[in-house]
C-alpha cells in the first residue's frame, strides 16, 4: 500500500478534518480561558492597589505623614520583588515620601488608572517593568500614588499561552499520526475485501466473502456484498436457464424439421431433390446462426473465464493459418503469419481458435484476388498481454459502420448481396475476446481492414 493512497483515503481525510476542528475548538476554549485568566488577574491586581491606598489613607489619618513614611519604609524592607511602590507628594507636587520618581511618563487608563514603565533591579539586572498605578488624595493637599508591577501576571499569561500552543501542536501531530495509521488499517481491510471480491467475480461466483474476520462497517459492507453476489448468481442461473430452455424448445423442433426434410429428399427423384437440398441448406444455416447466437448469449451472460489453461497463441495462430491457407490459396490470396515470439495466455483453446478462425474467415471472404492477409502476434503495448492483428487488403469497413458490425445480425449494406453469412461472426469474436478479459478493435489498414484483438 502506498503512502499516497493512505493520504488520499477517506478515513485519513476525515481524521485530518476532525483534528483541525478539534484543535480549533480547543484553541478557542483555551483562548477564552487565557483572556478570563488575564482579566481576573488584573482585577485582583487593581483591587490590591485600592486596598493598599485605603491602608495608606488609614495610616495617614492615624499617624499623619510620619506614619506614612514609616509604613513605606517597612514595606520596602520586605524581601519580595513584586511589592507595592509608593509616591507621596504635597500640594505643590514635591515628593515627600515613597520610592517612585516624581513624574514618570504616565499613560492614562480608564477609571483613573495609570500605567508606566520603570526599570527595576532584579538579581543585579535592570529590567524594564510595566506598572499599574492609582493616585489618591490623602488629605491636607497630600496626594499618594500606589503602583504595582504586573510582570508576574504577564509571565504567567505567557506561560499559559505557550502551554496552550504546545498542547495544540501536540494534539495535531498525534491526531494526524494516529489518523494515518488507522486510515492505513482501514485501507488494508478495504483492499483485502477488494481483492477477495474481484477474485470471486473472476473465478467462482458461488463463493462468498468471509464475514467473521470483519468488524463494524466493513462487516456490514461484506454482508451487503455477499447479498449482491447471491443475487448476481441467481440472475446468472436464471439467464442460463432461459437460454437452456430456448435451446431445448426451439432447436429441437428445428432439428426435427431438418431431418424430416432429409427423409423427404430420400424419396424424391433427382430432379426434385435439388430444391429440397436448398431448403435443407437454408435450414442448416438457420441452425448454425441459432447455435452461434446461443453461444454468444452463453458467453456474454455467464461468468467470464475461470482459470482456463495456458494457451500458446503462436501455436494456435499457426494452426488457424495452416487450416485456412489452402482456402486463401484457392482464392488467390496470400496469407502470412508474423509471430516472432510465442505468447502464453490463459484461455479456452477452442474458443480462441474459433475467434481467430472467424476473423480470418471474414478476411479471406472479403479480400479480392491478389490480395494479402497478414496475421501478427506481438506482446501487448503496456508490456503485459498480447496483441493479435489480422489485417487484410479488402474493401475495409467505413468508419461509421465500425461500431455496428459487432451488433448481432448486423451486416454492412454493400456486402449483403455479395457475401453469404449470418452477421454473427464478429459478435462472437467480441464475445470470446471479452470472455477472456480482452477486447477487439477495428482499424484502417489503408487499404483494408485491421482487426486488433487484445488479450491479457
Amino acid at each position, binding site marked *: 500500500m502506498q503512502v499516497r493512497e493512505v493520504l488520499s483515503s477517506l478515513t485519513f481525510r476525515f481524521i485530518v478534518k476532525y483534528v483541525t476542528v478539534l484543535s480549533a475548538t480547543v484553541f478557542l476554549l483555551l483562548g477564552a480561558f487565557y483572556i478570563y485568566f488575564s482579566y481576573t488577574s488584573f482585577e485582583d491586581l487593581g483591587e490590591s492597589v485600592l486596598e493598599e491606598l485605603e491602608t495608606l489613607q488609614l495610616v495617614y489619618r492615624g499617624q499623619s505623614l510620619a506614619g506614612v513614611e514609616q509604613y513605606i519604609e517597612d514595606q520596602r524592607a520586605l524581601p519580595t520583588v513584586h511589592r507595592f511602590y509608593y509616591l507621596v507628594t504635597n500640594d505643590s507636587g514635591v515628593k515627600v515620601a515613597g520610592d517612585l520618581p516624581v513624574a514618570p511618563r504616565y499613560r492614562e487608563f480608564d477609571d483613573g488608572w495609570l500605567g508606566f514603565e520603570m526599570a527595576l533591579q532584579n538579581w543585579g539586572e535592570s529590567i524594564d517593568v510595566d506598572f499599574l498605578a492609582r493616585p489618591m488624595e490623602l488629605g491636607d493637599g497630600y496626594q499618594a500614588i500606589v503602583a504595582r508591577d504586573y510582570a508576574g501576571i504577564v509571565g504567567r499569561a505567557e506561560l499559559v499561552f505557550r502551554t496552550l500552543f504546545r498542547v495544540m501542536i501536540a494534539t495535531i501531530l498525534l491526531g494526524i499520526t494516529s489518523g494515518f495509521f488507522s486510515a492505513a488499517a482501514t485501507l488494508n481491510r478495504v483492499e483485502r475485501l477488494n481483492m477477495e471480491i474481484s477474485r470471486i467475480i473472476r473465478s467462482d461466483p458461488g463463493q462468498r466473502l468471509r464475514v467473521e474476520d470483519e468488524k463494524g462497517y466493513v462487516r456490514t459492507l461484506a454482508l451487503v456484498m455477499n447479498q449482491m453476489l447471491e443475487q448476481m448468481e441467481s440472475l446468472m442461473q436464471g439467464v442460463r436457464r432461459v437460454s*437452456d430452455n430456448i*435451446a*431445448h424448445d426451439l*432447436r*429441437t*423442433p*428445428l*432439428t*426435427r424439421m*431438418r*431431418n424430416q426434410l*432429409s*427423409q423427404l429428399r430420400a424419396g424424391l427423384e433427382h430432379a426434385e431433390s435439388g430444391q429440397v*437440398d436448398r431448403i*435443407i441448406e437454408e435450414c*442448416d444455416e438457420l*441452425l*448454425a446462426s*441459432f*447455435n*452461434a447466437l*446461443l*453461444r454468444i448469449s*452463453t458467453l456474454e451472460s*455467464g461468468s467470464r473465464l475461470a482459470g482456463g489453461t495456458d494457451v500458446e497463441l503462436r501455436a494456435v495462430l499457426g*494452426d488457424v493459418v*495452416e*487450416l*485456412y491457407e*489452402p*482456402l486463401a490459396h*484457392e482464392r488467390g490470396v496470400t496469407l502470412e503469419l508474423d509471430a516472432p515470439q510465442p505468447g502464453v495466455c490463459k484461455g*479456452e*483453446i*477452442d*474458443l480462441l*481458435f*474459433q475467434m481467430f*478462425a*472467424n476473423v480470418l*474467415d*471474414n478476411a*479471406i*471472404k472479403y479480400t479480392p484476388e491478389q490480395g494479402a492477409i497478414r496475421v501478427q502476434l506481438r506482446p501487448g503495448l503496456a508490456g503485459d498481454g498480447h496483441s493479435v492483428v489480422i489485417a487484410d487488403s479488402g474493401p475495409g469497413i467505413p468508419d461509421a459502420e465500425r461500431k455496428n458490425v459487432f451488433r448481432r445480425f448486423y451486416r454492412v449494406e454493400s456486402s449483403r448481396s455479395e457475401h453469404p*453469412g449470418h452477421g454473427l*461472426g464478429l459478435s462472437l469474436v467480441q464475445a470470446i475476446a471479452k470472455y477472456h478479459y480482452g477486447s477487439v478493435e477495428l482499424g484502417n489498414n489503408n487499404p483494408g481492414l485491421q482487426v486488433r484483438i487484445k488479450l491479457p
Partner: protein
Amino acid sequence: MKILLVEDDESVGDFIVGELTAAGHQCAHEKDGEAGYKAAVDNDYDVMVIDRMLPRMDGLTLIQRLRTEGNHTPVLVLSALGDVDDRVRGLHSGADDYLVKPFSMAELLARLEVLHRRASMPVVDVRTTLQVEDLFMDLLKQQVQRQDTPISLQPREYKLLEYLMRHAGQVVTRAMLLEHVWGYHFDPQTNVIDVHVSRLRQKIDRDFDQPLLATVRGAGYRLGPAQAVG
C-alpha cells in the same frame, strides 16, 4: 448395432429411434435417468446415446454410475448446451463423444459407427501399416503409396489421410475431422475442410481409375471403394 437411447423429449426420442431403425439398427428408448440406468445394467448394448438433462437422474450422473460399476459401453452424450464447459464436463464423466443439439442424423450415425468400431477393436492398436484397397500407409516410415506410386503428403494431409484410413468404410464428418486431425472443436463459418480434402483427393485419386475418397452429401466423407451413396 444394439443401441440404447435415453432421451426425455418424446418427439426427439421417437424421431431418433425411427431414424436409427431405418438405418438398420436395433434401438431401445428410455425416457428418464433411472429407467435408462436399469436398461443399461440389464441388457448388453453396443453403444448408448444419453441426453445431458434427464428427469430423475442427470445424464452425466448416469454415465458416472455406469463407469464406476465397470460398464464400458461407449456413450455419446447429447446436449442442448453449446458451451465448451459442458463438453469438457461430459467427457470427464466418462462419455466417449459429445454432440450438441441440433445435429444432423448423418453426424449422429457417423459418430455412433465410429464409437462402435473403436469399442470392438483391440484397445492397443499395434498396426504398423494401413491399407485401403490399393492405398498403403506405412506408419513407421510415414510413407504413403498407391499401387506402386509413392505419394508425397504434407504433414497435415498425412494426418488427415491416416484418420480417414483408420475409419475406412465409415462416414467421417467435417466436425470429426476438425476434432481429430486439427485438434480443435469449433464451427467453421465456411467449408474450410473441403479445400483440404480436395487437395488430398488430388494426390491420392487424380491419377488413378478408381476413386477412393468420396463425399457423402449432407454428412462428410468416406474413404473406401466407391459405393452407392445412401
